[in-house]
């Protein structure tokens, strides 16, 4: 069972690494989805290991929240693109100027 958790950890780390070094906001968003998926795997593994159905329910709610987050996040990306005409996260510097 621990290999499942190791897979989840490595996936999460790849997602975090991508979030730290990519610039394209769409890809940043994909990295967030990657991390959510990794966390979901861990939740499912624990649910299976401790024979508790609540883990699977929690994973389902994580999925629902991820769907809501995807809807809002993509709308935010569209609004960002409309105001800056770019998808580069370093162009989101309005507050710095």
């Amino acid at each position, binding site marked *: 069972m621990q290999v499942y958790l190791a897979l989840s950890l490595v996936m999460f780390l790849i997602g975090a690494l991508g979030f730290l070094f990519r610039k394209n906001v769409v890809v940043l968003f994909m990295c967030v989805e990657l991390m959510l998926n990794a966390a979901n795997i861990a939740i499912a593994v624990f*649910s299976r290991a401790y024979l508790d159905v609540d883990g699977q329910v929690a994973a389902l709610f994580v999925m*629902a929240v991820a769907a809501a987050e995807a809807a809002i996040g993509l709308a935010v990306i569209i609004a960002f693109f409309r105001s800056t005409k770019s998808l580069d996260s370093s162009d989101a510097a309005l507050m710095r100027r």
Partner: protein
Amino acid sequence: MDSELLRQGAFFTLASIMLVGSAGVICFRRPVYSALSLLIVILGTAAIFASLDAHFLALAQVMLYGGAITVLFLFLIMLIGAGKERFNIMSLFYWSVALLLTIGLGLMLMPDIATLKLDEGTSFGIKELGNAIFTAKSNWLFVLEVTGALLTASMVAAVVLALGKKEPTIKYVEEKK
């Protein structure tokens, strides 16, 4: 054929495909390729769920992530274009900071994983899941209601955000004349 061996072989094949896919998400320059790699990872995750006997989770994963979220990504990329990324692999400094942070996180979590003792057990089907969520003595009823409110609110927010600033209507322009 030993079924345990078969299971392990299947897991390691799946895991390597998923890791390559998730590396593809962050390494491809064009967001379309990243989205397709993400789809591979999502389907692999569904298979992992299935191998953990979480069959409903696997189904929901394919429908929600594979069917809805990936398509949403592809539509977004189609609508606003891939966008030229100033990739420049950034400086070595940023790379080393990012690697250090992720390795530190990994080292922080590694002991917890290594000391876990997990047993194999029975699985839960969709019936147990439904009982856990929807019955009167469930702990999740309130969470379910709040999630419904959250989804509705997010839908309204997405529409409002995507509409943007309202153009003055023709009637208004005519009145000004």
